Protein backbone atom coordinates (compact mmCIF):
# COMPACT_ATOMS: atom_id res chain seq x y z
CA UNK A 1 0.00 0.00 0.00
CA UNK A 2 1.25 3.41 -0.79
CA UNK A 3 0.27 6.85 0.17
CA UNK A 4 2.16 9.32 -1.89
CA UNK A 5 1.26 12.45 -0.03
CA UNK A 6 3.54 14.75 -1.91
CA UNK A 7 4.97 13.54 -5.22
CA UNK A 8 5.33 15.48 -8.41
CA UNK A 9 3.82 14.74 -11.79
CA UNK A 10 4.73 16.12 -15.18
CA UNK A 11 3.29 15.34 -18.58
CA UNK A 12 3.83 16.66 -22.07
CA UNK A 13 1.72 15.92 -25.14
CA UNK A 14 3.08 17.47 -28.33
CA UNK A 15 0.83 18.77 -31.08
CA UNK A 16 3.67 20.30 -33.10
CA UNK A 17 5.86 17.63 -34.75
CA UNK A 18 8.83 20.00 -34.90
CA UNK A 19 9.14 19.71 -31.10
CA UNK A 20 9.38 15.89 -31.13
CA UNK A 21 13.21 15.81 -31.20
CA UNK A 22 13.14 17.92 -28.00
CA UNK A 23 10.52 15.92 -26.07
CA UNK A 24 13.09 14.31 -23.76
CA UNK A 25 14.88 17.57 -23.05
CA UNK A 26 11.62 19.35 -22.24
CA UNK A 27 10.39 16.51 -20.03
CA UNK A 28 13.76 16.26 -18.24
CA UNK A 29 13.60 19.96 -17.34
CA UNK A 30 10.02 19.60 -16.07
CA UNK A 31 10.93 16.52 -14.03
CA UNK A 32 13.97 18.20 -12.46
CA UNK A 33 11.79 21.09 -11.29
CA UNK A 34 9.59 18.65 -9.40
CA UNK A 35 12.58 16.95 -7.74
CA UNK A 36 11.91 18.46 -4.32
CA UNK A 37 8.32 17.15 -4.37
CA UNK A 38 9.59 13.59 -4.71
CA UNK A 39 13.27 13.02 -3.95
CA UNK A 40 13.03 9.24 -3.28
CA UNK A 41 12.62 7.87 -6.77
CA UNK A 42 11.51 8.87 -10.22
CA UNK A 43 10.25 7.38 -13.42
CA UNK A 44 9.06 8.32 -16.84
CA UNK A 45 7.38 6.92 -19.91
CA UNK A 46 8.24 8.19 -23.36
CA UNK A 47 6.22 7.43 -26.46
CA UNK A 48 8.59 7.24 -29.42
CA UNK A 49 7.73 6.57 -33.02
CA UNK A 50 5.21 3.71 -33.21
CA UNK A 51 6.07 0.69 -35.35
CA UNK A 52 3.10 -1.67 -35.75
CA UNK A 53 5.33 -4.54 -36.94
CA UNK A 54 7.58 -4.49 -33.88
CA UNK A 55 6.88 -4.69 -30.19
CA UNK A 56 9.10 -3.05 -27.60
CA UNK A 57 9.53 -4.64 -24.18
CA UNK A 58 11.17 -2.51 -21.50
CA UNK A 59 12.75 -4.75 -18.85
CA UNK A 60 14.55 -3.87 -15.64
CA UNK A 61 17.09 -5.91 -13.72
CA UNK A 62 18.76 -5.41 -10.36
CA UNK A 63 21.78 -7.20 -11.87
CA UNK A 64 22.01 -5.79 -15.39
CA UNK A 65 25.62 -6.96 -15.90
CA UNK A 66 24.55 -10.56 -15.39
CA UNK A 67 21.21 -10.39 -17.16
CA UNK A 68 21.63 -8.18 -20.22
CA UNK A 69 24.69 -9.52 -22.12
CA UNK A 70 23.49 -12.20 -24.53
CA UNK A 71 19.84 -11.59 -23.63
CA UNK A 72 18.78 -10.74 -27.20
CA UNK A 73 20.34 -13.96 -28.53
CA UNK A 74 18.70 -16.09 -25.85
CA UNK A 75 15.36 -14.42 -26.55
CA UNK A 76 15.74 -14.83 -30.30
CA UNK A 77 16.44 -18.56 -29.91
CA UNK A 78 13.49 -18.99 -27.56
CA UNK A 79 10.94 -17.33 -29.86
CA UNK A 80 12.49 -18.44 -33.16
CA UNK A 81 12.53 -14.89 -34.50
CA UNK A 82 14.91 -11.92 -34.51
CA UNK A 83 15.28 -9.90 -31.30
CA UNK A 84 17.35 -6.80 -30.60
CA UNK A 85 18.33 -4.99 -27.42
CA UNK A 86 19.18 -1.43 -26.36
CA UNK A 87 20.71 -1.31 -22.88
CA UNK A 88 20.32 1.77 -20.68
CA UNK A 89 21.79 1.25 -17.22
CA UNK A 90 19.41 -1.01 -15.24
CA UNK A 91 16.87 -1.07 -18.07
CA UNK A 92 16.89 -2.56 -21.54
CA UNK A 93 14.47 -2.19 -24.43
CA UNK A 94 13.99 -5.43 -26.37
CA UNK A 95 12.56 -5.40 -29.88
CA UNK A 96 10.67 -8.44 -31.21
CA UNK A 97 8.16 -8.98 -34.04
CA UNK A 98 4.70 -7.89 -32.86
CA UNK A 99 3.21 -11.38 -33.27
CA UNK A 100 5.90 -12.84 -30.98
CA UNK A 101 5.20 -10.51 -28.04
CA UNK A 102 3.47 -13.04 -25.79
CA UNK A 103 6.06 -15.74 -26.61
CA UNK A 104 8.80 -13.28 -25.72
CA UNK A 105 7.17 -12.38 -22.38
CA UNK A 106 6.86 -16.07 -21.49
CA UNK A 107 10.46 -16.71 -22.55
CA UNK A 108 11.80 -13.83 -20.42
CA UNK A 109 10.39 -15.43 -17.27
CA UNK A 110 12.34 -18.61 -18.14
CA UNK A 111 15.55 -16.78 -19.09
CA UNK A 112 15.89 -14.87 -15.82
CA UNK A 113 13.40 -14.51 -12.96
CA UNK A 114 15.18 -11.28 -12.05
CA UNK A 115 13.91 -9.51 -15.15
CA UNK A 116 10.94 -7.26 -14.53
CA UNK A 117 8.80 -6.11 -17.41
CA UNK A 118 8.20 -2.35 -16.99
CA UNK A 119 6.00 -1.98 -20.05
CA UNK A 120 5.30 -3.23 -23.56
CA UNK A 121 3.95 -1.66 -26.71
CA UNK A 122 4.62 -0.25 -30.16
CA UNK A 123 5.74 3.13 -28.90
CA UNK A 124 6.18 3.15 -25.11
CA UNK A 125 9.43 2.89 -23.17
CA UNK A 126 9.35 3.07 -19.36
CA UNK A 127 12.22 3.82 -17.02
CA UNK A 128 12.06 4.09 -13.25
CA UNK A 129 14.61 3.88 -10.51
CA UNK A 130 15.37 4.82 -6.93
CA UNK A 131 17.31 8.08 -6.56
CA UNK A 132 16.97 11.83 -6.93
CA UNK A 133 14.95 12.63 -10.10
CA UNK A 134 17.73 14.51 -11.91
CA UNK A 135 20.04 11.55 -11.28
CA UNK A 136 17.41 9.10 -12.55
CA UNK A 137 16.81 11.03 -15.78
CA UNK A 138 20.60 11.35 -16.28
CA UNK A 139 21.12 7.58 -15.88
CA UNK A 140 18.60 6.88 -18.63
CA UNK A 141 19.57 9.89 -20.77
CA UNK A 142 16.04 11.28 -20.90
CA UNK A 143 17.56 14.52 -22.22
CA UNK A 144 18.18 12.99 -25.64
CA UNK A 145 15.00 10.95 -26.06
CA UNK A 146 12.58 11.88 -28.81
CA UNK A 147 8.88 11.21 -29.04
CA UNK A 148 5.30 12.40 -29.31
CA UNK A 149 4.38 12.49 -25.62
CA UNK A 150 5.73 11.55 -22.22
CA UNK A 151 4.82 11.37 -18.55
CA UNK A 152 7.08 11.60 -15.51
CA UNK A 153 6.76 11.17 -11.76
CA UNK A 154 8.84 12.06 -8.72
CA UNK A 155 7.94 10.06 -5.66
CA UNK A 156 7.93 10.81 -1.96
CA UNK A 157 6.88 7.53 -0.40
CA UNK A 158 5.27 7.86 3.00
CA UNK A 159 3.94 4.39 3.79
CA UNK A 160 5.80 1.81 1.75
CA UNK A 161 9.38 1.03 0.85
CA UNK A 162 11.30 3.05 -1.68
CA UNK A 163 11.80 0.48 -4.44
CA UNK A 164 12.07 0.46 -8.20
CA UNK A 165 8.81 -1.46 -8.51
CA UNK A 166 7.02 1.01 -6.25
CA UNK A 167 8.02 3.89 -8.51
CA UNK A 168 5.68 5.25 -11.18
CA UNK A 169 4.64 5.08 -14.03
CA UNK A 170 2.68 1.85 -13.87
CA UNK A 171 1.87 0.08 -17.09
CA UNK A 172 -0.78 -2.63 -17.21
CA UNK A 173 -1.57 -2.78 -20.92
CA UNK A 174 0.21 -2.27 -24.24
CA UNK A 175 1.32 1.35 -24.67
CA UNK A 176 -0.57 2.38 -21.54
CA UNK A 177 0.81 4.05 -18.46
CA UNK A 178 -0.42 5.95 -15.45
CA UNK A 179 1.14 8.13 -12.78
CA UNK A 180 -0.65 9.11 -9.60
CA UNK A 181 -0.40 11.60 -6.79
CA UNK A 182 -2.62 10.57 -3.92
CA UNK A 183 -3.92 7.38 -2.34
CA UNK A 184 -6.84 5.10 -3.15
CA UNK A 185 -8.96 3.73 -0.33
CA UNK A 186 -10.81 0.92 -2.14
CA UNK A 187 -7.95 -0.55 -4.15
CA UNK A 188 -8.08 -3.96 -2.43
CA UNK A 189 -11.70 -4.49 -3.45
CA UNK A 190 -11.07 -3.31 -6.99
CA UNK A 191 -7.98 -5.52 -7.25
CA UNK A 192 -10.01 -8.57 -6.20
CA UNK A 193 -12.66 -7.81 -8.84
CA UNK A 194 -10.05 -7.31 -11.54
CA UNK A 195 -8.14 -10.49 -10.63
CA UNK A 196 -11.42 -12.39 -10.93
CA UNK A 197 -11.67 -10.93 -14.45
CA UNK A 198 -8.19 -12.17 -15.36
CA UNK A 199 -6.03 -9.08 -14.71
CA UNK A 200 -2.56 -9.77 -13.28
CA UNK A 201 -0.72 -7.63 -10.71
CA UNK A 202 2.99 -7.21 -10.02
CA UNK A 203 2.72 -5.27 -6.73
CA UNK A 204 0.44 -4.40 -3.80
CA UNK A 205 0.50 -0.79 -4.95
CA UNK A 206 -2.76 1.20 -5.16
CA UNK A 207 -1.59 3.01 -8.29
CA UNK A 208 -1.16 -0.27 -10.16
CA UNK A 209 -4.84 -0.94 -9.42
CA UNK A 210 -5.87 2.37 -10.98
CA UNK A 211 -3.76 1.59 -14.06
CA UNK A 212 -5.20 -1.92 -14.33
CA UNK A 213 -8.73 -0.60 -13.87
CA UNK A 214 -8.31 1.72 -16.86
CA UNK A 215 -6.75 -1.08 -18.93
CA UNK A 216 -9.72 -3.33 -18.04
CA UNK A 217 -12.15 -0.62 -19.11
CA UNK A 218 -10.29 0.03 -22.37
CA UNK A 219 -10.24 -3.72 -23.05
CA UNK A 220 -14.04 -3.44 -22.97
CA UNK A 221 -13.80 -1.05 -25.91
CA UNK A 222 -13.86 2.32 -24.19
CA UNK A 223 -11.38 5.01 -25.15
CA UNK A 224 -9.18 6.59 -22.48
CA UNK A 225 -11.55 9.51 -21.91
CA UNK A 226 -14.52 7.18 -21.39
CA UNK A 227 -12.50 4.89 -19.11
CA UNK A 228 -11.54 7.89 -16.96
CA UNK A 229 -15.22 8.90 -16.71
CA UNK A 230 -16.03 5.41 -15.39
CA UNK A 231 -13.24 5.59 -12.81
CA UNK A 232 -15.02 8.53 -11.17
CA UNK A 233 -17.79 6.09 -10.20
CA UNK A 234 -15.57 3.21 -9.11
CA UNK A 235 -12.32 4.53 -7.64
CA UNK A 236 -12.45 6.04 -4.16
CA UNK A 237 -9.72 8.13 -2.58
CA UNK A 238 -7.44 11.02 -3.35
CA UNK A 239 -5.92 11.17 -6.77
CA UNK A 240 -4.59 13.22 -9.57
CA UNK A 241 -3.99 10.86 -12.49
CA UNK A 242 -2.04 11.56 -15.64
CA UNK A 243 -2.44 8.79 -18.19
CA UNK A 244 -0.89 8.00 -21.55
CA UNK A 245 -1.93 5.69 -24.38
CA UNK A 246 -0.31 5.18 -27.78
CA UNK A 247 -1.92 8.35 -29.10
CA UNK A 248 -3.79 9.78 -26.13
CA UNK A 249 -3.13 11.82 -23.00
CA UNK A 250 -5.57 12.22 -20.11
CA UNK A 251 -5.83 14.02 -16.76
CA UNK A 252 -8.30 13.41 -13.94
CA UNK A 253 -8.59 14.77 -10.39
CA UNK A 254 -10.86 13.34 -7.70
CA UNK A 255 -13.92 15.37 -6.59
CA UNK A 256 -12.15 16.78 -3.51
CA UNK A 257 -9.10 17.78 -5.58
CA UNK A 258 -6.57 18.30 -2.77
CA UNK A 259 -3.65 17.20 -4.91
CA UNK A 260 -2.23 20.10 -6.91
CA UNK A 261 -2.48 20.27 -10.70
CA UNK A 262 -1.82 22.82 -13.41
CA UNK A 263 -2.50 22.43 -17.14
CA UNK A 264 -1.11 24.57 -19.94
CA UNK A 265 -2.05 24.49 -23.60
CA UNK A 266 -0.67 26.22 -26.68
CA UNK A 267 -0.87 25.44 -30.41
CA UNK A 268 2.30 23.38 -29.91
CA UNK A 269 1.58 21.27 -26.82
CA UNK A 270 -0.47 20.33 -23.79
CA UNK A 271 1.56 20.25 -20.57
CA UNK A 272 0.74 19.08 -17.08
CA UNK A 273 2.60 19.95 -13.88
CA UNK A 274 1.89 19.43 -10.18
CA UNK A 275 2.92 23.06 -10.00
CA UNK A 276 3.37 25.91 -12.43
CA UNK A 277 7.09 25.74 -11.54
CA UNK A 278 7.36 22.58 -13.69
CA UNK A 279 6.21 24.47 -16.79
CA UNK A 280 8.23 27.69 -16.61
CA UNK A 281 10.79 26.84 -19.31
CA UNK A 282 8.39 25.51 -21.94
CA UNK A 283 8.38 27.51 -25.18
CA UNK A 284 5.68 30.19 -25.23
CA UNK A 285 4.50 29.45 -21.68
CA UNK A 286 4.05 33.21 -21.08
CA UNK A 287 1.20 33.23 -23.58
CA UNK A 288 -0.15 29.72 -22.97
CA UNK A 289 -3.63 29.11 -21.60
CA UNK A 290 -2.78 28.03 -18.05
CA UNK A 291 -5.48 26.70 -15.73
CA UNK A 292 -6.16 24.46 -12.78
CA UNK A 293 -8.08 21.36 -13.91
CA UNK A 294 -11.55 21.17 -12.35
CA UNK A 295 -12.33 18.41 -9.85
CA UNK A 296 -14.06 15.27 -11.19
CA UNK A 297 -13.59 16.46 -14.76
CA UNK A 298 -11.92 14.37 -17.46
CA UNK A 299 -9.39 16.13 -19.69
CA UNK A 300 -8.37 14.12 -22.72
CA UNK A 301 -6.37 14.78 -25.88
CA UNK A 302 -5.73 12.45 -28.81
CA UNK A 303 -3.40 12.59 -31.81
Amino acid sequence: MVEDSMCGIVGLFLKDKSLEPKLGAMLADMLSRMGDRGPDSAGFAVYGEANAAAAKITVQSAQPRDDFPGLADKLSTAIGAPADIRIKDTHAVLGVPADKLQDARDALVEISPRLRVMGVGEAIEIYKEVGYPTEVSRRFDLQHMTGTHGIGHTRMATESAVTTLGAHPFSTGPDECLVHNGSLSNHNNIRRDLVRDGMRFETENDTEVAAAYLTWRMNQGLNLGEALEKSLDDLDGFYTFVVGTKDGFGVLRDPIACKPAVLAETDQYVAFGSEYRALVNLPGIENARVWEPEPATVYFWEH
Partner: protein
Amino acid sequence: MPTVDLAETSLREFNQTLHGLREGTNETEWIVLNPKGQHAVAVGIDAPIRVEIKGSVGYYCAGMNKLATVVVDGSAGPGVAENMMSGTVVVKGDASQYAGATGRGGLLVIEGNASSRCGISMKGIDIVVRGNIGHMSAFMAQSGNLVVLGDAGDALGDSIYEARLFVRGAVKSLGADCIEKEMRPEHVALLEELLEKAGIDGVEPAEFKRYGSARKLYNFNIDNADAY
Protein backbone atom coordinates in the same frame (compact mmCIF):
# COMPACT_ATOMS: atom_id res chain seq x y z
CA MET B 1 12.75 51.86 -6.94
CA PRO B 2 14.67 48.61 -6.23
CA THR B 3 14.29 45.86 -8.83
CA VAL B 4 15.06 42.31 -7.76
CA ASP B 5 15.63 39.60 -10.36
CA LEU B 6 14.95 36.24 -8.76
CA ALA B 7 16.94 34.59 -11.55
CA GLU B 8 19.99 36.24 -9.92
CA THR B 9 19.07 36.95 -6.29
CA SER B 10 18.14 34.04 -4.07
CA LEU B 11 14.59 34.03 -2.75
CA ARG B 12 15.83 33.72 0.82
CA GLU B 13 18.06 36.78 0.45
CA PHE B 14 15.20 38.78 -1.09
CA ASN B 15 12.69 37.83 1.61
CA GLN B 16 15.31 38.62 4.29
CA THR B 17 15.75 42.08 2.78
CA LEU B 18 12.00 42.67 2.90
CA HIS B 19 11.88 41.50 6.52
CA GLY B 20 14.48 44.13 7.41
CA LEU B 21 12.22 46.99 6.23
CA ARG B 22 10.13 48.94 8.73
CA GLU B 23 7.67 51.81 8.65
CA GLY B 24 9.49 54.96 7.48
CA THR B 25 11.74 53.15 4.99
CA ASN B 26 12.52 55.07 1.80
CA GLU B 27 12.49 51.91 -0.31
CA THR B 28 8.74 51.73 -0.73
CA GLU B 29 8.37 50.48 -4.32
CA TRP B 30 9.78 47.08 -5.27
CA ILE B 31 9.70 45.26 -8.59
CA VAL B 32 10.34 41.51 -8.67
CA LEU B 33 11.33 39.76 -11.91
CA ASN B 34 11.41 36.07 -12.84
CA PRO B 35 9.46 34.55 -9.93
CA LYS B 36 8.97 31.43 -12.11
CA GLY B 37 6.48 29.80 -9.76
CA GLN B 38 8.76 29.85 -6.71
CA HIS B 39 7.21 29.29 -3.29
CA ALA B 40 6.88 31.84 -0.47
CA VAL B 41 7.71 34.95 -2.52
CA ALA B 42 7.31 38.11 -0.41
CA VAL B 43 6.11 36.25 2.66
CA GLY B 44 6.03 37.94 6.06
CA ILE B 45 6.43 41.62 5.12
CA ASP B 46 5.85 44.06 8.00
CA ALA B 47 6.16 47.52 6.38
CA PRO B 48 3.95 49.83 4.28
CA ILE B 49 5.70 49.12 0.98
CA ARG B 50 4.48 48.08 -2.45
CA VAL B 51 5.89 44.94 -4.11
CA GLU B 52 4.96 44.17 -7.69
CA ILE B 53 5.81 40.65 -8.86
CA LYS B 54 6.10 40.30 -12.65
CA GLY B 55 5.01 36.75 -13.32
CA SER B 56 3.36 33.76 -11.66
CA VAL B 57 4.21 32.52 -8.18
CA GLY B 58 3.95 29.17 -6.37
CA TYR B 59 2.72 28.33 -2.88
CA TYR B 60 2.08 30.86 -0.07
CA CYS B 61 2.92 34.13 -1.83
CA ALA B 62 2.46 37.16 0.48
CA GLY B 63 1.56 34.94 3.40
CA MET B 64 1.27 36.65 6.81
CA ASN B 65 1.41 40.02 5.04
CA LYS B 66 1.26 43.11 7.28
CA LEU B 67 0.79 46.68 5.94
CA ALA B 68 2.29 45.99 2.50
CA THR B 69 0.63 45.99 -0.91
CA VAL B 70 1.70 42.97 -2.93
CA VAL B 71 0.63 42.72 -6.57
CA VAL B 72 1.09 39.48 -8.50
CA ASP B 73 1.13 40.24 -12.21
CA GLY B 74 0.34 36.62 -13.03
CA SER B 75 -1.30 33.70 -11.25
CA ALA B 76 -0.71 32.42 -7.73
CA GLY B 77 -0.34 28.86 -6.44
CA PRO B 78 -1.96 27.41 -3.30
CA GLY B 79 -2.29 29.53 -0.16
CA VAL B 80 -1.79 33.04 -1.53
CA ALA B 81 -2.04 35.63 1.30
CA GLU B 82 -2.50 32.85 3.84
CA ASN B 83 -2.97 34.29 7.31
CA MET B 84 -2.67 37.86 6.03
CA MET B 85 -2.87 40.41 8.90
CA SER B 86 -3.36 43.71 7.01
CA GLY B 87 -2.46 45.47 3.78
CA THR B 88 -3.56 44.50 0.27
CA VAL B 89 -2.72 41.57 -1.98
CA VAL B 90 -3.84 41.66 -5.63
CA VAL B 91 -3.58 38.68 -7.99
CA LYS B 92 -4.06 39.75 -11.61
CA GLY B 93 -4.55 36.17 -12.82
CA ASP B 94 -6.06 33.13 -11.09
CA ALA B 95 -5.42 31.81 -7.59
CA SER B 96 -5.14 28.14 -6.65
CA GLN B 97 -6.51 26.39 -3.57
CA TYR B 98 -7.14 28.05 -0.19
CA ALA B 99 -6.49 31.66 -1.18
CA GLY B 100 -6.63 33.91 1.88
CA ALA B 101 -6.94 30.96 4.26
CA THR B 102 -7.13 31.94 7.95
CA GLY B 103 -6.59 35.60 6.95
CA ARG B 104 -7.08 37.96 9.89
CA GLY B 105 -7.28 41.32 8.10
CA GLY B 106 -6.49 43.33 4.99
CA LEU B 107 -7.86 42.93 1.49
CA LEU B 108 -7.18 40.15 -1.02
CA VAL B 109 -8.33 40.85 -4.59
CA ILE B 110 -8.27 38.08 -7.20
CA GLU B 111 -8.93 39.43 -10.68
CA GLY B 112 -9.36 35.97 -12.22
CA ASN B 113 -10.84 32.82 -10.67
CA ALA B 114 -10.05 31.33 -7.30
CA SER B 115 -10.01 27.58 -6.88
CA SER B 116 -11.32 25.37 -4.07
CA ARG B 117 -11.35 26.32 -0.38
CA CYS B 118 -11.05 30.07 -1.01
CA GLY B 119 -11.22 31.89 2.35
CA ILE B 120 -11.22 28.67 4.40
CA SER B 121 -11.28 29.54 8.10
CA MET B 122 -11.05 33.26 7.31
CA LYS B 123 -10.85 35.37 10.48
CA GLY B 124 -11.40 38.99 9.45
CA ILE B 125 -9.86 39.28 5.96
CA ASP B 126 -11.86 40.76 3.09
CA ILE B 127 -11.62 38.78 -0.15
CA VAL B 128 -12.95 40.01 -3.50
CA VAL B 129 -12.92 37.62 -6.47
CA ARG B 130 -13.81 38.95 -9.89
CA GLY B 131 -14.33 35.46 -11.37
CA ASN B 132 -15.57 32.21 -9.85
CA ILE B 133 -14.60 30.32 -6.71
CA GLY B 134 -14.29 26.55 -6.28
CA HIS B 135 -15.86 24.05 -3.90
CA MET B 136 -15.69 24.21 -0.09
CA SER B 137 -14.99 27.95 -0.10
CA ALA B 138 -15.39 29.83 3.20
CA PHE B 139 -15.39 26.52 5.10
CA MET B 140 -15.59 27.34 8.82
CA ALA B 141 -15.22 31.05 7.96
CA GLN B 142 -15.26 32.99 11.21
CA SER B 143 -15.35 36.68 10.29
CA GLY B 144 -14.61 39.03 7.42
CA ASN B 145 -16.22 39.29 4.00
CA LEU B 146 -16.01 37.21 0.84
CA VAL B 147 -17.30 38.88 -2.34
CA VAL B 148 -17.61 36.84 -5.54
CA LEU B 149 -18.65 38.42 -8.83
CA GLY B 150 -18.95 35.06 -10.59
CA ASP B 151 -20.22 31.67 -9.42
CA ALA B 152 -19.45 29.59 -6.32
CA GLY B 153 -18.80 25.83 -6.31
CA ASP B 154 -20.23 23.10 -4.07
CA ALA B 155 -20.67 23.40 -0.30
CA LEU B 156 -20.21 27.15 0.02
CA GLY B 157 -19.79 28.27 3.63
CA ASP B 158 -19.93 24.82 5.21
CA SER B 159 -19.96 25.11 9.05
CA ILE B 160 -19.64 28.88 8.73
CA TYR B 161 -19.51 31.18 11.79
CA GLU B 162 -19.95 34.95 11.36
CA ALA B 163 -18.26 35.73 8.03
CA ARG B 164 -20.44 37.38 5.35
CA LEU B 165 -20.56 35.91 1.87
CA PHE B 166 -21.79 37.91 -1.16
CA VAL B 167 -22.16 36.04 -4.45
CA ARG B 168 -23.35 37.63 -7.69
CA GLY B 169 -23.62 34.46 -9.78
CA ALA B 170 -24.93 30.96 -9.13
CA VAL B 171 -24.08 28.95 -6.02
CA LYS B 172 -23.80 25.28 -6.90
CA SER B 173 -24.72 24.22 -3.37
CA LEU B 174 -24.59 25.56 0.17
CA GLY B 175 -22.69 23.72 2.90
CA ALA B 176 -24.05 22.65 6.28
CA ASP B 177 -25.59 25.51 8.26
CA CYS B 178 -25.07 28.08 5.49
CA ILE B 179 -28.20 29.87 4.28
CA GLU B 180 -29.20 32.77 2.07
CA LYS B 181 -29.89 35.89 4.08
CA GLU B 182 -31.63 39.19 3.51
CA MET B 183 -29.59 42.09 2.05
CA ARG B 184 -30.24 44.92 4.48
CA PRO B 185 -29.10 48.53 3.90
CA GLU B 186 -25.96 48.02 6.01
CA HIS B 187 -24.96 45.09 3.79
CA VAL B 188 -25.50 47.14 0.64
CA ALA B 189 -23.30 49.89 2.11
CA LEU B 190 -20.62 47.38 3.13
CA LEU B 191 -20.60 45.74 -0.30
CA GLU B 192 -20.38 49.12 -2.04
CA GLU B 193 -17.34 49.96 0.07
CA LEU B 194 -15.66 46.60 -0.62
CA LEU B 195 -16.21 46.83 -4.39
CA GLU B 196 -14.78 50.34 -4.40
CA LYS B 197 -11.75 49.29 -2.36
CA ALA B 198 -11.15 46.46 -4.82
CA GLY B 199 -11.36 48.88 -7.75
CA ILE B 200 -14.41 47.28 -9.31
CA ASP B 201 -17.01 49.43 -11.02
CA GLY B 202 -20.05 48.80 -13.17
CA VAL B 203 -21.37 46.26 -10.67
CA GLU B 204 -24.30 47.02 -8.35
CA PRO B 205 -24.64 45.59 -4.82
CA ALA B 206 -28.24 44.73 -5.74
CA GLU B 207 -26.92 42.08 -8.12
CA PHE B 208 -25.55 40.04 -5.19
CA LYS B 209 -27.12 37.64 -2.74
CA ARG B 210 -25.90 37.37 0.83
CA TYR B 211 -25.15 34.08 2.58
CA GLY B 212 -24.22 33.40 6.18
CA SER B 213 -24.65 31.15 9.17
CA ALA B 214 -27.99 29.74 10.27
CA ARG B 215 -26.26 29.37 13.68
CA LYS B 216 -27.72 25.89 14.16
CA LEU B 217 -24.33 24.27 14.73
CA TYR B 218 -23.28 26.68 17.46
CA ASN B 219 -24.70 24.63 20.29
CA PHE B 220 -25.18 20.94 20.83
CA ASN B 221 -28.72 19.94 20.06
CA ILE B 222 -29.91 17.55 22.76
CA ASP B 223 -32.24 15.84 20.27
CA ASN B 224 -29.11 14.47 18.55
CA ALA B 225 -27.78 12.80 21.72
CA ASP B 226 -28.91 9.36 20.53
CA ALA B 227 -26.71 9.66 17.48
CA TYR B 228 -23.51 9.43 19.55
